[in-house]
């Protein structure tokens, strides 16, 4: 367990004994990431603000029953993801989802029609992320169709398992994997296009 997780554990124990100050510190430590997840899932600041409120209120109301097998952060992230998914289910409009997803194109013989001009993979490890690239990735993520965006965020950003996502989204594991693959391909295309332009 790292230092941050140990500190969370100590704050959680105090919060479970009724120390509101300790709970507020936990909120402060996790609110940005919970907000980020909610914002990226719903693409709405107003919805994200309400999800963060509901998430931490629910966490507070269930503090006593939380046994701490998982980290506090993982627990509140799952609450927030469920809240966001519920909201999206209510708002869902039928989208021509798959048609909107970009991916690589192939020749009749199955070869790549367009080759990546630069291998930009090393940029992922650079110390500072280019601001324009960051913006392009955020916009590209927001453009992913519903159903694909959530799977990508929950798996590749939040690190949930395929099984957890399948259960939360009422999908089969193969369906989750298929959506993740298509979302990654679409985002990869967008990042590739960014590097071709610069």
């Amino acid at each position: 367990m790292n230092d941050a997780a140990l500190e969370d554990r100590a704050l959680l124990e105090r919060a479970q004994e009724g120390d509101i100050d300790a709970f507020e510190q936990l909120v402060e430590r996790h609110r940005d990431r919970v907000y980020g997840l909610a914002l990226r899932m719903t693409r709405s600041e107003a919805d994200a603000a309400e999800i963060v409120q509901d998430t931490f209120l629910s966490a507070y109301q269930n503090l006593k029953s939380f046994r701490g097998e998982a980290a506090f952060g993982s627990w509140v992230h799952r609450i927030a993801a469920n809240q966001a998914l519920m909201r999206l289910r209510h708002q869902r409009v039928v989208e021509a989802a798959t048609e909107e997803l970009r991916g690589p194109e192939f020749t009749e013989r199955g070869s790549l029609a367009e080759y990546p001009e630069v291998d930009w993979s090393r940029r992922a490890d650079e110390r500072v992320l280019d601001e324009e690239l960051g913006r392009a990735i955020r916009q590209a993520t927001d453009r992913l169709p519903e159903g694909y965006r959530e799977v990508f965020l929950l798996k590749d950003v939040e690190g949930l398992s395929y099984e957890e996502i399948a259960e939360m989204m009422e999908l089969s594991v193969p369906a989750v994997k298929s959506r993740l693959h298509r979302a990654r391909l679409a985002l990869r295309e967008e990042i590739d296009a960014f590097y071709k332009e610069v």
Partner: protein
Amino acid sequence: MFTCKDSIHSLLEYVDGELSEEDVQKLREHLHGCTPCVDFLNTYRATPKLARRALVDQMPDEMADKLKAFLRSKCQAK
């Protein structure tokens, strides 16, 4: 013949280490002679890493203040 299309279709399972031994062999043979697919695999792998770094949001201060006030009112009312 194992094509670029086959190779790209199998990337998720390959990255997850869930591709069958036979298919891993076919993919590796293809990658050995196909630089574009090697670059594609590298950039496919890098995509989630870049996204994780780009998707860091900070809650606006005003929203954070409202959240604090909201939780205080609810926690104290309990």
